[in-house]
């Protein structure tokens, strides 16, 4: 290895430049790869419902002078009966929201009534009518679904029906925060002013994503309450995946047919809702991929340019080595080793910079700490890229005939 290092000493500036470029690229690419991984993990999180089998719709009453814009419980029941009659629909329920559907309602939960210090803020409240658990396809790992007489008149927006139901299904994430390390089944928590309403946990689901993932509510922090109707809620329909398009098209006609004084501003196949929610993340991933691609291309071209220059500059020396008995493979190996050394220095500096950049980003943006294994792909990509980039100039070098040594250029 020694001659390689010795020769590099004569090209300090250019070596430093290449190493710097590699280091910068390595730092950026590593962090970009981590960002992509982070977003991909988020996008592939289990929602906890039957993604491929749901269609939802929200009807909105026009205020044309009737008593109330929102559908009454009787009207909602009629709507659901009509929706259930659409061919292919297996079941229908009404809820206030769905995982990743955007709008949510959150509130504080009391572990002990009247004890302000026992409040857990920002619990996400899902309310649903009869059959909601089955329709959405929520899997209970413990306990049971709601019983028919447990559905009560309760509105999250208060009003006359402000007494919540006495039972709830909670997510494992919420249970772990309320009662760490304990079996939540049969436990009691409290809602309302000073925690005056007691609610018993009858079921636990491992996963039910929040309607919106944000710093306050996190990813999962939900509970489900059984209600008779949901003011301003959404109808959720379950069916075979191939029926979704036809059902979605039928919904507005049926709802407006029942009551012309309203519109159906939102109706969607649920997988489209998920895909819309992650649109920004997808765009970000594409942007990162394009930038990574361009960065690697530019860096590779830089390496090609400099290696070619060195090969040209050292044509005579290569000829001498060849004349002294070095084989083509020796020359080739020399340039590959030289490149490996320079890129290696760049990568080591780059990895340190990558960790520093990650720490800085953590301070300024909501990013996680990058596990150190994420450094490996970035380092590997750059080392391989360096070797590939030097391949053509090294080949050219190995084809320098020994006779060059005797010529004066």
């Amino acid at each position, binding site marked *: 290895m020694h001659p390689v290092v010795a020769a590099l000493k004569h090209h300090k500036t250019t070596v430093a430049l290449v190493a710097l470029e590699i280091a910068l690229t390595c730092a950026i690419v590593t962090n970009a790869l981590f960002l992509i991984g982070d977003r991909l993990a988020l996008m592939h999180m289990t929602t906890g419902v039957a993604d491929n089998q749901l269609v939802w719709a929200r009807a909105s009453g026009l205020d044309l002078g009737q008593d109330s814009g929102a559908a009454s419980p009787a009207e909602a029941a009629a709507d659901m009966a009509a929706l259930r009659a659409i061919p292919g629909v297996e079941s229908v329920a009404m809820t206030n929201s769905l995982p990743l559907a955007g709008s949510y309602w959150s509130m504080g939960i009391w572990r002990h009534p009247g004890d302000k210090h026992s409040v857990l803020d920002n619990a996400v409240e899902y309310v649903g009518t009869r059959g909601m658990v089955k329709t959405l396809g929520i899997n209970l790992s413990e306990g049971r679904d709601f019983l028919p007489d447990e559905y009560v008149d309760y509105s999250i927006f208060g009003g006359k029906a402000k007494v919540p139901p006495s039972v709830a299904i909670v997510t494992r994430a919420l249970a772990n925060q309320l009662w760490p390390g304990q079996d939540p089944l049969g436990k009691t928590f409290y809602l309302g002013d000073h925690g005056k309403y007691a609610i018993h946990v009858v079921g636990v689901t491992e996963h039910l994503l929040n309607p919106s993932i944000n710093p306050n509510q996190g990813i999962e922090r939900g509970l489900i309450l059984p209600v008779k109707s949901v003011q301003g809620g959404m109808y959720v329909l379950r069916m075979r995946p191939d029926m979704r398009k036809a059902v979605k098209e039928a919904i507005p006609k049926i709802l407006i047919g029942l009551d012309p004084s309203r519109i159906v501003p939102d109706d969607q196949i649920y997988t489209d809702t998920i895909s819309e929610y992650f649109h920004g993340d997808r765009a970000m991933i594409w*942007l990162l991929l394009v*930038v990574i691609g361009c960065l690697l291309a530019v860096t590779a071209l830089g390496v090609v340019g400099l290696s070619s*220059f060195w090969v040209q500059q050292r044509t005579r020396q290569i000829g001498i080595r060849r004349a002294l008995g070095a084989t083509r493979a020796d020359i080739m190996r020399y340039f590959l080793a030289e490149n490996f050394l320079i890129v290696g220095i760049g990568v080591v500096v780059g990895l340190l910079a990558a960790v520093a950049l990650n720490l800085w980003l953590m301070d300024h943006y909501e990013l996680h700490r990058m596990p150190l294994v994420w450094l490996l792909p970035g380092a590997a990509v750059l080392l391989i890229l360096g070797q590939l980039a030097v391949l053509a100039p090294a080949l050219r070098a190995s084809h320098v005939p020994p006779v060059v040594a005797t010529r004066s250029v």
Partner: protein
Amino acid sequence: MLGYYLELAWRSLKRTPILTALMVLAIGLGIGASMTMITVLHVMTADPIPGRSAELFYPQLDPRPMEHYTKGEDPPDELTWIDAMNLLHAKKGVHQAAMVGGYLTVVPSEGATHAFIAGGRYTTADFFAMFDVPFVAGSGWTTGDDDKRAHVAVISRKLADRLYGTSGAVGKVLRLGKYDFRVVGVIDNWNPAPHFYDLGVGDYATQEQVFVPIETAMQLKQPIMTSMNCWGDIPTGDMTKAECTWMQFWVQLDTPAQVRAYRQFLIHYSKEQKQLGRFQRPPNTHLRDVMQWLAYNQVVPGSVQLEAMLALGFLLVCLVNTVALLLVKFLRRGGGLAVRRAMGASKRSVFAQLLVEAALTGLAGGLVGLLLALFGLWVVRQQPAAYAGLAHLDGAMLGVTFVLAVCATLLAALFPAWRACRLMPARLLKTQ
């Protein structure tokens, strides 16, 4: 001399077309990516109401109970009805307006079957004068209309065209649900971005279609759309009595003295309300102008800042790459340069010649970058994000593109050119 340098540069670039193309492409990619993201950042951080933004202020009060109180906590973003009305009627500013977003059912003359929902804003008389809202016809309503709870409305030009065609809309009847309103004014396309006066409905929300007096809207129980923060029991029906913050309030203060006086007034008001038993916490007030308010609410999403930094990082790598390639290029030409030096050219003139060559490369890179930025912005405009439609390259940014490209390239060329003219002519000539 410059003409001669340009000719030399042109010849040199032609001699190494691949290397030149590589450099132009690298600079172009870096400039294109950075300009795309800088332009997006530029439109997103733009002053939504130029000339007035330093005179418009958003007061904040803290009416919440002592429960969950932590010292130094920010007061809520919105005001309660009572506080907003108290500040409004105190008339301590040049102009002031209370407001909230909402939506209204517009019933056109064709009948109820053609009814549709339009975005609205319930506000008070000063809104239009304070924000310099441009009118096509008519004007805003008066404070008297506010107090009388008059059924008057100001509508957007778009809605006026849709409902009344080309004929004048002022004086016409506008049916909102079961109530008749009289149109008193039509405003031109006015769409401040960011939507500074109410960020709760979306940082880059689009213009409201209907404006009606807030007292009228509350009396008629029209639906509101806002970010709401409540304590105690959940509100039932009448929002004007609810223990919730849900209204926006803006005040115009023209001089620093007025601003100081208003700050004092807010503290005084908080103390007074605490004495009255309405407030429990010690005075916790803020008064921010438009740009401070936008910064406080972090209107520019972190992801956009991150993308802009990524683009600048990319530009940096492209420049390091350019330094390396220029160094190679200039050193390779050592022989030619040595001949020029031997023939009597000074170090300075060789240096200048190399910089002219670099500038030419930078200019070409800028052109490529401009095309890439135009393409990049087109891609951004195809995104469904609310700010996407704003992403256009204006004249200033066009200039910035070229200045950035040429300056960056010149900067990158300084070191290689300096190295190249330090070479010893005699030694180089000997080895030839």
